[in-house]
């Protein structure tokens, strides 16, 4: 079966800014592709081209075998788009928004009504159905936006930074919904600047930077380049640090135990083996050593970028959304407290 999304050598410039400078990638039917990159990398531009909102300067993009430039209307009937900012009518109620889109898709008013009821229920918005969207919380707004893009049961769903600005609970809720959609056979193209979001949802990740694809692979492949997770243990004195290093040496099968005398910090590579981290801490306690602090450190996107490009992401970061706790994002040191 051919890929459901085929992007080839896509170029798009706005004045002197080359938002897309020759981007190519493919998405297999029924899979989730994560388009990962900092602000201004070209993710949204790519989605806008695929959603027929923007004509490319050069190159081709096909969705479901249909060309986004020459068969735009046919593409529109198989896609759903959920933008970074909720593109629903805030003065309408949730139910009215869904019915409006149903009617625009050609449903009768009865069909539109029953489709709206189904979606409201599924997205847990039944109680808020007859309230104007202005009164919704951020999470509800994003849910109704997603519901609206699903009215036509699209084959391909574009999620453009779906959790930007959401609180952790709404975030995981949206992740769960996305997984359900994928289980139903929907193909999802997700843009995100959060490595953990791509990690959670995407089968494959395409990393883009300055309008170009700089890396492609599964989440594990990407993380391998950055060393995976490590356990960081802090001590009061260098004497404790030295004895702790001796205790932990057997745990570092690959020799990845780093000793930082200056910060009294010990770093043990554990990757996804959290049990190893627990055993390491237990071994220290058994040896009568009590760490001042310890935590799991995960590679941030910054680390991935450093590994991939040799440059950080600070220059690209503009007015990024507020940082979300526990969310891997540019500039975050991104440590996960284990003991708090």
């Amino acid at each position, binding site marked *: 079966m051919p890929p459901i999304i085929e992007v080839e050598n896509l170029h798009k410039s706005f004045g002197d800014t080359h938002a897309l400078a020759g981007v190519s990638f493919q998405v297999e039917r029924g899979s989730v592709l994560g388009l990962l990159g900092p602000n201004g990398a070209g993710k949204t531009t790519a989605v806008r081209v695929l959603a027929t909102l923007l004509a490319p300067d050069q190159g081709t993009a096909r969705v479901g075998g249909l060309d986004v430039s020459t068969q735009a209307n046919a593409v529109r009937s198989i896609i759903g788009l959920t933008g970074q900012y909720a593109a629903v009518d805030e*003065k309408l109620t949730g139910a009215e928004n869904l019915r409006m889109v149903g009617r625009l898709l*050609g449903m009768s008013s009865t069909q539109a009504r029953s489709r709206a009821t189904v979606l409201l229920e599924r997205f847990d918005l039944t109680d808020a159905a007859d309230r104007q969207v202005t009164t919704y919380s951020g999470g509800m707004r994003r849910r109704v936006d997603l519901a609206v893009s699903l009215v036509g049961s699209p084959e391909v769903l574009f999620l453009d930074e779906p959790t930007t600005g959401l609180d952790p609970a709404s975030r995981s809720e949206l992740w769960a919904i996305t997984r359900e959609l994928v289980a139903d056979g929907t193909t999802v193209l997700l843009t995100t600047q959060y490595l953990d979001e791509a990690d959670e949802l995407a089968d494959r990740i395409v990393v883009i930077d300055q309008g170009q694809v700089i890396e492609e692979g599964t989440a594990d492949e990407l993380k391998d380049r950055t060393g995976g997770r490590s356990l960081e243990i802090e001590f009061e004195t260098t004497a404790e640090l030295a004895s702790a290093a001796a205790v932990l040496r057997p745990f570092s099968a690959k020799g990845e135990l780093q000793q930082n005398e200056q910060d009294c910090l010990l770093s043990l590579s554990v990757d996804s083996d959290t049990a190893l981290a627990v055993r390491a801490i237990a071994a220290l306690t058994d040896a009568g050593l009590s760490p001042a602090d310890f935590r799991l450190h995960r590679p941030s996107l910054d680390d991935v970028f450093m590994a991939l490009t040799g440059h950080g992401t600070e220059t690209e970061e503009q007015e990024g959304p507020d940082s979300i706790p526990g969310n891997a994002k540019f500039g975050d040191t991104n440590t996960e407290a284990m003991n708090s």
Partner: protein
Amino acid sequence: MSDTATVSTETATYRRPSGLNAIYQDSRVIAWRNLVHLPRTPQLVIFTLIQPIMFVLLFTYVFGGAIGKALPPGVSYAQFLIPGIMVQTLVFGTSATAVGLAEDLQNGIIDRFRSLPISRSAVLNGRILADMIRLTAVATVLVVIGYVVGFRFQGGLGLGLLMILVAVAFGTSMCWIMTNIGMRVKDAETAQTAGFVWLFPLTFISSVFTPVYTMPAWLQVFARNNPVTLVANLLRALSVGEVLPGSTWVSMSLPVFLWIVGITAVAAPLAVNRYRQA
């Protein structure tokens, strides 16, 4: 996710209409959406209903005594004022078109519409259709308040309805200009200003509030040829049932008709074209 089956059966049972029918259906849905906005936008309700009422009362009782003296004998100020203020109010009311469209573009709902397989002109057609209905409501309110202060359809109801029709038609052509402004500015605040500022000279340097001959000669040149004057004069003629001395129905209505057709013929295609590229 238990309802997958329901979803797919539903998908199979509806189909998009095609051709003109699609444009009509889509425009109707968008018009409905814009009309639902009206009662939920307090400032629009005030603009639409309260402001014209206030203007009629203020002008009648504050300026009526003074300006009424400049009118030909036998013409009451209310009779002079209502047709004029109808043009003025409708023209001012069209700026809401620019603001509404700019808001839609700003908050992304236009992107939503553009990602749907609907006819390209429906979003603008729907907005204009809703605005036409809104303008008709405003014109009706003005007639009602006019009747309270002494205005009458002296030429009969038929010509009275024609008066409303002409006023709304002119207002609608102005709405097309406003759609262009709404799509070319970057936000709703700018649209508010850009859609409003030029309406002051346009409506005040006209026969809307005072007879043109009371103005300085150089201003009269503009005032006499201002489409707002032409429309106001035609509305007055329709409200009293007779043309101004020295003119005929054709000489009064043809320029108005040409202005309405001309503005629409230029502004509407420009707007639709702009929308396609937006």
